């Protein structure tokens, strides 16, 4: 065997081992959700040895109201994504193309917020929401999440708009298009790759977010999926199969979206680093 193929085989072996480590918890989750509750901690095999208990998913979805929690998560995530993409695309267009007093100062003042970590302002945010009367509402989750995503989205959109040739803007203006129209009909459609990046980054973030709803929501009917999964664990003894079925329902959308949009996700991660 040549030296080169030996090297390739060694690399392959290491990568396969690491893949197994990455995938094991997910496979364990799938396996445990299909076992009965005694079998989970007693059997060595990852998947059930005899019957596969699919029924548990139906129970979790219907009896444990996961349909409702799922809808809540979709609701919160959807409006967060809409807000982030439209508000900051519009703002970035102004920062990239228009001229107005205080532009640079406002832009950097806005970006500076990025450095303040979430938990530092969590307590005053709770109080602010209390005074605004939006505690225990989905709006109370959406607004801070949109704002939290703001600096990164604004930065990405502005860079993207800068990379579009200025002639396009000039000729649209000569044709007499209004500024809002230029943004909506030309710049927003041209920036769809940036929209995709921002969408996937914030989809994962808002879908999995935990502390914010933990603090802001007490009404169980409004719970998002992470909190709903925690509800499954509130009994005296833990039913692993139920807990894992709920867990799987809660992360399945994230995994699906990731597989279809991973190119944009990777771009987002890399550009996030360049930003900092």
């Amino acid at each position, binding site marked *: 065997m040549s030296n080169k193929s030996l090297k390739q085989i060694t690399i392959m072996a290491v990568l396969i081992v690491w893949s197994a480590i990455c995938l094991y918890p997910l496979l364990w989750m799938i396996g445990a959700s299909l076992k009965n509750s005694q079998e989970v901690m007693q059997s060595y095999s990852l998947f059930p040895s005899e019957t596969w208990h699919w029924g548990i998913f139906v129970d979790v979805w219907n009896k444990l109201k996961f349909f409702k929690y799922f809808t809540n998560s979709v609701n919160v995530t959807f409006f967060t994504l809409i807000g982030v993409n439209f508000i900051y695309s*519009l703002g970035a267009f102004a920062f990239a193309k228009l001229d107005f007093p205080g532009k640079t100062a406002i832009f950097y003042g806005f970006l500076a917020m990025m450095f303040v970590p979430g938990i530092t302002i969590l307590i005053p945010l709770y109080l602010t929401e209390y005074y605004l009367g939006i505690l225990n509402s989905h709006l109370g989750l959406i607004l801070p999440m949109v704002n939290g995503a703001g600096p990164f989205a604004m930065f990405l959109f502005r860079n993207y708009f800068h990379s579009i040739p200025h002639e396009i803007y000039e000729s649209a203006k000569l044709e007499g298009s209004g500024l809002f129209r230029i943004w909506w009909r030309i710049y927003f459609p041209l920036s769809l790759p940036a929209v995709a990046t921002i969408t996937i980054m914030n989809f994962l973030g808002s879908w999995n977010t935990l502390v914010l709803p933990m603090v802001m929501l007490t009404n169980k009917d409004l719970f998002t999926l992470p909190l709903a999964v*925690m509800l499954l664990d509130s009994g005296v003894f833990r039913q692993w199969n139920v807990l894992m079925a709920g867990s799987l329902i809660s992360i399945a959308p994230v995994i699906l979206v990731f597989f279809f949009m*991973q190119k944009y996700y990777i771009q987002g991660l890399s550009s996030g680093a360049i930003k900092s």
Partner: protein
Amino acid sequence: MNKRKEMVAGYAMIAPAILLYLMVGLVTLLFSIWIAFQHVNAGSLISSAKFAGFDNFKDFLWGGDSVATGMFFSAIKNNLIIAASLIVIVIPLSLVLAVLLQNIRWFAKGFRTIFLIPMVTASVAIFYVWQGIYDPAGALNTTLSAFGLDALVAKNGWLGEINTALPAIIAQTCWGAIPATLILYVAGLQSVDTHLYESADIDGATALQKLLHITWPVLRPITAIAVIMTINGAMQIFDNIWLMTKGGPAGSTQVVNVLVYQDAFASGKLSRANAMGWTVFLVTFLFSLISLKALRSKT
């Protein structure tokens, strides 16, 4: 006239972003600084506020409340242990994996997808799985005894014993933190100009010389970013610890954010918790600056 129109349009376009920023961002931020210097009661906030000077900070920094001080410093210590462990484990491991990904001839994309899974699934769901793995009857103990390593088995579960809980948390955190760093290095390695390697080969450069003079200059700033990201992540850690241990057993995995959360929302000490939040923020910021300086000054 045209200028004026542009100005009005400009302000109108940034208005939604700025309004939101003022409402849940800036006002909240100023509110937060103000509260840190007040005595407030949980029930009637603003009306009960009394100026406290540095009392809230004294409580947990200089033994104003000796229990709080003890808890705060042991939590900070755990954050720092986690940060140091992550830097030592995550960064080299990510670099090695990125180099291997760069050199594999088949399935590079497939591997990269799989390697991102820990980050994508980082949620309540996956933390429960890790609890299951660390359970007294869980996969880790079972595997250890299957290999005859009964001495290593944690009888109360890996998260249930004071000596093993923090290492177990760190292992799980590393697992979740590698993807982000890995992607940085993958992007970095791809941006290295391959022509430079070819001309270095013609000049007869050794592998070490190529590493030092071609690869490392590209990877150094990336490493700086990775270190800062890691420090920030370790100081901000909350979700996985809250789910898996809530800081226990006996405070052995307590970290600052869990303490802030408990102090504010379980004990009702809103202003003290807020002061803690700010202290951690400043400490994190300081560490980030130091590591940035250190990695910049090295040639």
